[in-house]
């Protein structure tokens, strides 16, 4: 296993910190009544979007999930545009259509959007990977989805076709143990990673709370896909720290369970490692956090100053 360079570790750390501070800021805006949509916090699961997107090139494709906004943050989406979408104003990437379950996209960055019906990602990922192969590029598609979403029939149809056609896709399942309230053991036969064998592709189960594991596994899978060797399934075991949505009473788990999770925080754990290994000082990490918060605050400011759309917005962009 190749070592991850100190510079990359710091980048992964910064990426996760951005996601965490974005999340805190979004929650504050939500409390202030400035968010016109629901929000599914990604707190606790930052290692997966950070480690799963970092290996991608700018022109690689991303199908993201609804758990936080980390995937698109990592792919370089404008922070102001994302805040604008939360506020449903014209600063948003959708120009005011709003996007709590994010429906923003940026073709320049390979961000292909997200459906509100879970499992939409599968077919589109297979199609984008087919397209890359058809056009003779070496672009790769990474598709994120939850353990609950893995039980959609669309998973089978799309994963099967991608494997049969050796398409360049990396399927990353974030197994946080729950689909809203239903524990994975009650809904899911066998281990999700074991499905890979059924499709004749490599599958790995990793610790999704450790960004270095996610990064390494994704790098390997991306290399394989880019080399024309077909798809990989990664099952990243993880924990969501907050409710499924803000306001979720979480009757399906105990307070002790959620409190115990905090010790597994992927960001504080990486920070401790960076300090212990002499890659960064606590002071430097503190400065990084201040800088990131500053960037986020400026993005909120930009987004806040944009006007709401007029009713004519409803009729724009439907047909070409």
């Amino acid at each position, binding site marked *: 296993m190749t070592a991850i360079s100190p510079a990359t570790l710091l980048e992964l750390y910064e990426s996760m910190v951005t996601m965490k501070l974005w999340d805190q800021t979004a929650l504050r805006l939500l409390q202030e009544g400035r968010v016109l949509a629901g929000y599914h916090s990604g707190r606790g699961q930052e290692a997966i979007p950070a480690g799963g997107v970092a290996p991608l090139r700018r022109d690689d494709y991303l199908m993201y999930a609804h758990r936080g906004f980390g995937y698109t943050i990592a792919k370089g989406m404008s922070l102001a545009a994302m805040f604008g979408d939360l506020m449903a104003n014209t600063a948003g990437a959708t120009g005011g259509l709003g996007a709590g379950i994010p429906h923003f996209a940026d*073709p320049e960055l390979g961000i292909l959007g997200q459906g509100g019906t879970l499992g*939409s990602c599968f*077919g589109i*990922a297979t*199609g984008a990977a087919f397209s890359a192969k058809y056009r003779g590029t070496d672009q790769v598609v990474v598709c994120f989805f939850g353990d609950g979403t893995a039980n959609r029939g669309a998973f089978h*149809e799309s994963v099967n076709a991608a494997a*049969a056609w050796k398409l360049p896709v990396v399927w990353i399942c974030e197994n946080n143990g729950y689909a809203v309230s239903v524990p994975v053991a009650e809904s899911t036969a066998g281990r999700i990673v074991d499905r890979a064998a059924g499709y004749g592709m490599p599958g790995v189960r990793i610790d999704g709370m450790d960004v270095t594991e996610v990064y390494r596994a994704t790098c390997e899978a991306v290399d394989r896909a880019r080399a024309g060797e077909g798809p990989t399934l990664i099952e990243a075991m993880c924990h969501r720290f907050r409710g499924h949505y803000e306001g979720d009473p979480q009757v399906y788990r105990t307070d002790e369970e959620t409190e115990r999770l905090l010790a597994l925080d992927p960001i504080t754990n990486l920070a401790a490692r960076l300090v212990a290994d002499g890659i960064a000082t606590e002071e430097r990490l503190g400065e990084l956090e201040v800088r990131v918060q500053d960037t986020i605050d400026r993005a909120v400011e930009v987004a806040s100053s944009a006007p709401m759309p007029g009713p004519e917005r409803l009729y724009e*962009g439907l*047909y*070409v």
Partner: protein
Amino acid sequence: MSQATTTRTLTFSQAIREALREEMERDDRVFVWGEDVAVYGGIYGATAGLLEQFGPGRVIDTPISETMIVGAAVGAAITGLRPVAELQSSGYFGIAMDELYHKAARWRYMHGGVFTVPLVIRLPEGAKGAGPEHDVSPEALFLSASGAYVVIPSDPADALGLMKSAIRDDNPVLFFEHAGLYAYRGEVPAGDHLVPLGEAAVKREGSDVTVIAWSRMVGESLRAAEQLEAEGIDVEVVDPRGLRPLDLDTILESVAKTGRVVIAHEAPKTGGAGGEVAAIIAEEALEFLESPIIRVASADVPIPQSRYLQQFLIPTAASVTEAIRRLD
């Protein structure tokens, strides 16, 4: 345009194939996929010979995975390709409904217009003795799928010209082909024959009554018009050639001229698109109507497999003739 003076005779199925072939020759982003479309040439022969000409990279047999066929076509369309995907029967719409209704139709709009979704989904429809799930004509289900075009040819010339336009259009197009029409022959203009989407065709001019019909019911309505001519009733047959974009101008102009309307389609009356067309006419042109609008459609029952029973259910020229005679 000089070539347009000559014509060739093609079946409806050959016309679809010619459209695919011409567009694949013109634009290498166009590809075809679906079940049995490659080696077998499509169960209605509409893709026969394409594999030999364009190879397995562009003519692709898929697994029996309708959700993937449509979903992945959307993924290919938003990343620079122009897929033509075939569902072996439009009766399988339910398996791909999320992908048709939400993904194909709405991906562009819901993401703020940053993509185009230039794809065509071919949907064979209509009664052919294959049973209640296969023999449907489900075009009206997509009336509310704003964002997607709904195109329905009724003869080989329109099949070719509309398919070529559909492939070139940057909007997603649901392209319904009546299975009972595939073997039907007709004259097709030679050359680059394009029929614009959303332009109705007055298939027969008349002054007494307007029959608005699409798909197989256009031919049935033309036969009805011939019969009634002998009785001195002058029937105009308007084929909207699809439901969206809907050419209201041509429809309303005809209604204003004749003052009498029959709407004919093969789908069951309740929930059929005739209801929508009738409502539009009532809203926009009630003052011209001299008689209530009559809808000619199948009864509200599932379509039995038995062709014997189908003859009592599926509307024909006689149904149209009978309806016209009932008008005031």
